[in-house]
């Protein structure tokens, strides 16, 4: 997991720790470098001082060739354990005395080198001139010091630096753990509130404001947004509830009305028929025409009521959704419409159709309305109806294409409204409810329906059914 995906708390701590860590490391590095450099210099200076003292003391030994005295003087170097070797050379460069006394001659340079002190490998070596006051040179003193003191000091300094680093980082950790809260707490509170809102859709919660800084402003803005959403949500819920209630009432009303209208209508139509049968011969032509109008009106009203009932039943008498093979549905439609198909000489073709999750009865009704319309609104030619399907990721789009009279674009919406007709009753029979029922069925399935057409060019009705909640079954 990259730093980008870490919680903000860890991110802040990481930033703080990294910053202080780098500072501490750089400081310690500077400290160690300083220690190392100064201690090397100090060691060099100490050795050169020691060299000068020993050289000054050993002048007489060299001048008067007293080896024992020279050895004794050199043996004083025991006090400085870092001196691992020393040698006294006479003015001809021959080794005169050495320290420690048992040091092999080979461990010392065969002849003295140039005066001065220098670091060689793991040692500090130096050559100091031996002369009495400012007089002629009597010889050379060689000193060799190991650098364990330097490394020891460096180790100590390193240990101190490590300790300082550890303590600093610990303090930095504790401080950052405390201080990061000032930034992360308001953000976390915001995030927590936002999460709660999106998970529970509870717009009544408010993020606590923990300061008047930018985060405080953000919190305020967020809370204001929440209250606005809460207000709107409440208004929306209210509206939905009202709509649902009125819709239900309307449906109930439509159902009850159409149902209850049947009875008196039946009475009107049966008594009108009775009137015609019993007293038809007693009436003149005008009276019989009136009766015919009354019967015709009653029959039309009967059909309207039936259609209205059918329309309201889409939602009140719906059956549960289950996988349906649309090929089978189309078969049923063909059977139901067999008379109309035969009479019109229509040809209903189809591609392989998928299965969908739907109310089978309503799906039959839907397709039957569309295929029926395609046959009904035919032009001069033989009706050709083609049913196809285009399965997609989220929805399956069905198409019913015909070669009928077509529809002008300005009517594309109107045709789906209940009891809206584009043609005179004499031209094409029907109450104008078919497409309204289609739309209601499609909407009950969570889909949509639309048309593409032009007058005289035939029409294609599309309806899309969602493939979600188990969706399309292959």
């Amino acid at each position, binding site marked *: 997991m990259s730093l980008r995906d870490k919680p903000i708390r860890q991110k802040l701590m990481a930033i703080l720790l990294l910053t202080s860590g780098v500072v501490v490391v750089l400081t310690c590095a500077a400290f160690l470098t300083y220690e190392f450099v100064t201690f090397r210099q100090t060691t060099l200076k100490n050795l050169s001082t020691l060299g000068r003292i020993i050289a000054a003391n050993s002048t*007489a030994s060299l001048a*008067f060739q007293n080896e024992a005295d020279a050895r004794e003087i050199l043996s004083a170097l025991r006090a400085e354990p870092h001196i691992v070797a020393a040698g006294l050379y006479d003015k001809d460069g021959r080794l005169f005395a050495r320290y420690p006394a048992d040091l092999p001659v080979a461990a010392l340079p065969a002849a003295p080198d140039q005066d001065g002190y220098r670091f060689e490998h793991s040692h500090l070596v130096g050559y100091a001139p031996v002369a009495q006051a*400012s007089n*002629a040179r009597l010889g050379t003193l060689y000193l060799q010091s190991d650098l364990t003191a330097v490394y020891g000091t460096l180790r100590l300094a390193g240990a101190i630096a490590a300790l300082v680093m550890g303590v600093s980082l610990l303090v930095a950790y504790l401080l950052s753990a405390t201080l990061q809260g000032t930034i992360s707490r308001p953000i976390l509170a915001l995030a927590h509130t936002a999460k709660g809102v999106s998970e529970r859709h509870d717009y009544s919660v408010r993020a606590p404001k923990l300061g008047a800084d930018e985060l405080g402003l953000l919190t305020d803005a967020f809370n204001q947004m929440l209250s606005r959403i809460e207000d709107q949500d409440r208004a929306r819920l209210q509206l939905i509830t009202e709509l649902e209630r009125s819709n239900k009432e309307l449906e109930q009303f439509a159902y009850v009305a159409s149902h209850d209208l049947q009875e008196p209508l039946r009475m009107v139509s049966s008594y009108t028929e009775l009137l015609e049968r019993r007293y038809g011969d007693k009436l003149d032509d005008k009276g019989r025409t009136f009766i015919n109008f009354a019967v015709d009106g009653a029959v039309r009203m009967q059909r309207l009521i039936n259609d209205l009932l059918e329309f309201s039943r889409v939602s009140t008498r719906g059956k549960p959704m289950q996988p349906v093979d649309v090929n089978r549905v189309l078969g049923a439609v063909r059977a139901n419409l067999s008379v109309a198909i035969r009479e019109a000489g229509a040809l209903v073709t189809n591609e392989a159709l998928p299965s969908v999750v739907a109310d089978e009865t309503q799906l039959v009704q839907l397709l039957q309305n569309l295929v029926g319309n395609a046959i009904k609104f035919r032009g001069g030619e033989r009706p050709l109806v083609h049913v196809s399907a285009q399965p997609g990721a989220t929805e399956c789009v069905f198409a019913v294409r015909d070669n009928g009279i077509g529809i002008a674009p300005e009517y594309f919406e109107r045709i789906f409204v209940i009891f809206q007709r584009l043609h005179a009753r004499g031209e094409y029979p029907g109450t104008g409810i078919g497409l309204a029922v289609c739309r209601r069925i499609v909407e009950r399935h969570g889909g949509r329906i639309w048309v593409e057409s032009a007058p005289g060019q035939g029409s294609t009705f599309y309806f899309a059914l969602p493939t979600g909640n188990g969706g399309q079954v292959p």
Partner: protein
Amino acid sequence: MALLKTTLGIRACLLGAVVLLPWGPSLGAQAARTPEYQVKAVFLFNFAQFVDWPAGAFPDSTAPLIIGVLGDDPFGPYLDETVRGEMVRGRPLEIRRYQTIEDIKTCHILFVSPSEESRLEDILANLKHRAILTVGDGAGFAQRGGMIRFISERNKIRMRINVAAAEAVRLTISSKLLRAAEIVTPGKP
């Protein structure tokens, strides 16, 4: 830098002499071949560096430091070679040879030749109040009132110093020189 140059110059000048001076302990094989008086000549020269003379011993600050040899000179060319071109504390060195004690006018280091052994008491008595560092190699030289005696010991030259005699004429012998020598008190063997 000047010191270094001088030192190098001295080294170069002395090369002839020092190459022939392996009297040192680490070079025992060559030691036998090193003339004893060559070493003694160098020692005489070195005394100039480790002894302080009282004020008045020199007429001025650049006056030469005089090393005298009383009696027959046993050094041959060595003494002259040793001091040639050398300076000690800004003074040039000069070698003088005396036949009698009366010849000695200004002198700072006097080597009493073995040839003067018989007259030693007189010589030392004569020099008793003069700020002259007396050096000799005769037996009992230091006990008899001389200041420094050379002793040959297993191919090495050792010194025996009579500090009291030196102090009596206000000669200060460096403690470093005393370290390298044996100190004797007159009257004791």
